[in-house]
């Protein structure tokens, strides 16, 4: 469950030798994943069992109170729960009933563990089982941990999908199935489906889908393609159901998208001519879109503070397709299996960091002064105020960036702060 380090020496070539740091971190916890998960899974409610801090975190990270009545909420623990004056399971049942009375149309409720619920060892797996039996045929309950002591940021999605993986129906047919794993925006899903269909890859499921009741079957004929680079636990859970991974780089940028689709096409024995016929048009569009940005970004340096696990594929994209020069790239943790096809593509001469120690890391950014620093929301403005240009990384999770048609949009996210610096005449940043 924890993000413990996998021995990097087994798989990593010389160009990927991260320095490990243990110190103050500046990352969200896994609860933040709820912000995009609840938009994707439209018949589910995410009920965090935690503290006022959890509730405040989610609404602050979401941009503060934007939806009418959100499909997420927090069962806030109080003194009475902690002192044992109230039975936490009775209380949870009451809160669940409250949620369902407001939203009787819900099909699933995710009980999401938090730091406080884990420290007091509140057994949410057990609660999910009990509630599933109680609401049998109406609502399914699934539990996962989004706590900050167990998870960072995007690991919330990993734990969510891993816990759903055991609920997927078993596939008993002999039909080949492709399962695309990881939340992608609907528009990206639709583009991907069209391309798979043109390649002649018949049965394709996306996990998670928009309906929690519509779960894809999984079995020994299921092939997995990861759409997001933070799904190590989900991968292991699906493999235990018999599925096999198609190792591929992630579909970020023209190169990543092509390699990703070709991996699937090769596994399905799609002829080279057909692959070229289907993939060349979007590939050329993506390259044309990127060409405009390459002139803006080429030769610019960047650093990335650890945040979402997207750092490694993004550094590959920015270096190889945009011509940028990485200085220091941090990632919260390194999962060698998930990153296996990315590492050989990484540029050399990069200072890789695994984990974080915030103050020294900020001092290094101040010393190396990259043209662009990719970092979390809390740090961006302070660096701007010191004359450094930044890109907030949370946007990379909320914006469609995957696939051929989004390659240009992805480059735009990094080009815009630099263009803005050139455009403004209100005093210089540096």
């Amino acid at each position, binding site marked *: 469950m*924890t993000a413990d380090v996998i021995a990097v020496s087994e798989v990593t070539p010389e160009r990927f030798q991260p320095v490990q740091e243990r*110190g103050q*971190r500046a990352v*969200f916890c896994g609860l933040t994943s709820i912000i995009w998960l609840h938009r994707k899974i439209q018949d589910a409610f995410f009920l965090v069992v935690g503290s006022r801090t959890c509730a*405040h975190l989610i609404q602050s990270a979401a941009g503060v109170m934007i939806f009418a009545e*959100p499909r997420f909420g927090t*069962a806030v623990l109080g003194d009475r729960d902690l002192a044992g004056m109230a039975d936490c399971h009775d209380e949870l049942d009451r809160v669940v009933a409250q949620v369902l009375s407001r939203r009787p149309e819900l099909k699933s409720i995710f009980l999401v563990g938090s730091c406080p619920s884990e420290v007091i060892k509140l057994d949410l797996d057990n609660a999910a089982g009990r509630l599933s039996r109680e609401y049998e045929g109406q609502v399914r309950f699934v539990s996962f941990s989004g*706590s900050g*002591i167990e998870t960072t940021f995007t690991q919330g999605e990993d734990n969510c999908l891993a816990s759903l993986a055991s609920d997927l129906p078993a596939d008993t047919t002999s039909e080949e199935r492709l399962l695309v794993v990881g939340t992608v925006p609907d528009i990206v899903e639709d583009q991907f489906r069209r391309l798979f269909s043109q390649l002649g890859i018949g049965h394709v499921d996306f996990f998670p889908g928009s309906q929690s009741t519509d779960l894809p079957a999984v079995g020994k004929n299921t092939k997995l393609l990861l759409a997001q680079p933070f799904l190590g636990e989900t991968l292991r859970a699906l493999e235990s159901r018999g599925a096999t991974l198609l190792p591929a780089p992630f579909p970020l940028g023209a190169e990543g998208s092509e390699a990703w689709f070709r991996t699937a096409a090769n596994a399905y024995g799609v002829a080279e001519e057909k692959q070229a016929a289907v993939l060349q048009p979007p590939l050329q569009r993506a390259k044309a879109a990127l060409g405009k940005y390459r002139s803006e970004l080429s030769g610019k340096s960047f650093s990335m503070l650890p945040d979402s696990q997207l750092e490694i594929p993004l550094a590959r994209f920015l270096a190889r397709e945009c011509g940028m020069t990485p200085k220091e790239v941090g990632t919260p943790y390194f999962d060698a299996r998930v990153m296996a096809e990315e590492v050989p593509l990484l540029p050399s001469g990069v200072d890789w960091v695994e984990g974080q120690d915030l103050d020294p890391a900020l001092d290094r950014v101040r010393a190396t002064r990259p043209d662009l620093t990719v970092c979390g929301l809390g740090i961006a403005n302070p660096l701007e105020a010191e004359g450094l240009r930044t890109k907030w990384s949370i946007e990379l999770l909320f914006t469609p960036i995957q696939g051929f048609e989004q390659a240009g949009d992805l480059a735009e996210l990094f080009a815009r702060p630099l263009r803005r610096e050139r455009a403004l005449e209100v005093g210089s940043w540096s």
Partner: protein
Amino acid sequence: MELTLWTYEGPPHVGAIRVAASMRGVHLVLHAPQGDTYADLLFTMIERDGKRPPVTYTTFQARDLGASTAEKFLNTLQAAYDHHKPSLLLVADSCTAELLQDQPGTLAETAGLPVPVVPLEMAAYSRKENWGASETFYHLVRAVLSAQRNAEEKPADQGSSNRRRTVNLLGPTKLGFRCRDDIQEIQRLLQSVGIGVNVVAPLGADINDISRIPEADANVCLYPEVALTTCTWLERNFGQPVIRTVPLGFGATQDFLSELAGVLQVDISAEAVADCRLPWYSRSVDSTYLTGKRVFVFGDGMHAMTCARVAQQEMGFEVVGLGTYSREMAREVRGMAKELGLEALITDDHMVVEQAVSELRPELVLGTQMERHIAKRLGIGCAVISTPAHVQDYPARFSPQMGVEGANVLFDTWVHPLIMGLEEHLLHMFRDDFEFNDHAAPSHLSHGEGTLMAVEESNVVALAGVRWEDGAEKELKKIPFFVRGKAKRNTERYAEERGLTAIDIETLYEAKAHYSR
């Protein structure tokens, strides 16, 4: 356990961070897991702070649980001191760390750091953000002043009546509502009447400033949610009277100056508020249309109460609902609501507030960011008067709420969402014109932003068992659409109270006569 969808206040340790971030040379070491670092973005994104708040989080993880979290805290404390070299350290637990019972306060005392260390108990499972800010400010002031009280006594220089009187302005913080501008305005006001400002704290103060607090003649409790506990302690221990009137609104600013004059034994000329434009703007004929506009007021205790007074007495609105999420201020808010003939709404559940707003159908909502969204959904105009607020409520321009200029700002801000007086008449006269139809919003507002959309029939749920006859329904449509919702609601209530099952034209006009003011 309490189901919370959106919250008005963060946890108490966010209040502690607000106090630390407001001051210079103060650093907070917070024993907390990694996710709690989200608090940084409140300051850097909502208030656009150019610096990270001065807080170091221990960011312990599951693998640290057990014996080593205490060690992690001590290492973090030392590293934070070495890196930031503060003149005072605050030490606190967040909610999760409170459960570990590592006692960071006690641990910090053993660390032997060369600066004062102030331990805080944040009671994360029963208290909230403003309480946390209040506790932090109180313990910080107490720690600094108690240490020096033994060393020196306050000079008894009260003799000369010509001596320039000074006050402290207490309570403004980062992420407070318009604190930056309020302080500037109140300092200007005090300067204009010859009263000096000794210390402003926490915002902008350092430890040296805190140690000079006792030198002032009185403490102005500008933001009671944060400063009242401290002011009360200072009154008891240093004999400093507390100025309790918050100068928000024209009348309150006058009362504030009167209270100052009485407490400080000085003459203050009424000229000080003479250049305020609110009184004339409000008496001006074009403001007649503001008369009796139904207003719902909700916010922290201080802002809700001061704004309710302005709404009622200075704008000529009718306050139809008053409430607060500040339980600490519940008694005062209840008292004021009673004076207005209302029952106060004391809740931190925004769904309860939404219910109240949709039942009362006010024409304007004065509230927080939360009520802004409620009002938007219900198609009612809204002005934000209190935290929680979003980035647009930390404006670039000078925009105080307090003092003379503050009153001017309130007039402009609250009138803006309402349909302009003359425009209201024109809309009535030309209501059949294709451009001035029932769905045209005020020209200065984008679609859906203003009060005008409030009364679309579809939004008004008909009471069960009451049927509108055709003639009455046609007559209803002749009523100007901006009051039609109220007419429909009143008629239905009238019919229901009399056990009628159908509404005809007679019922409509009987109800109109019954409810006419």
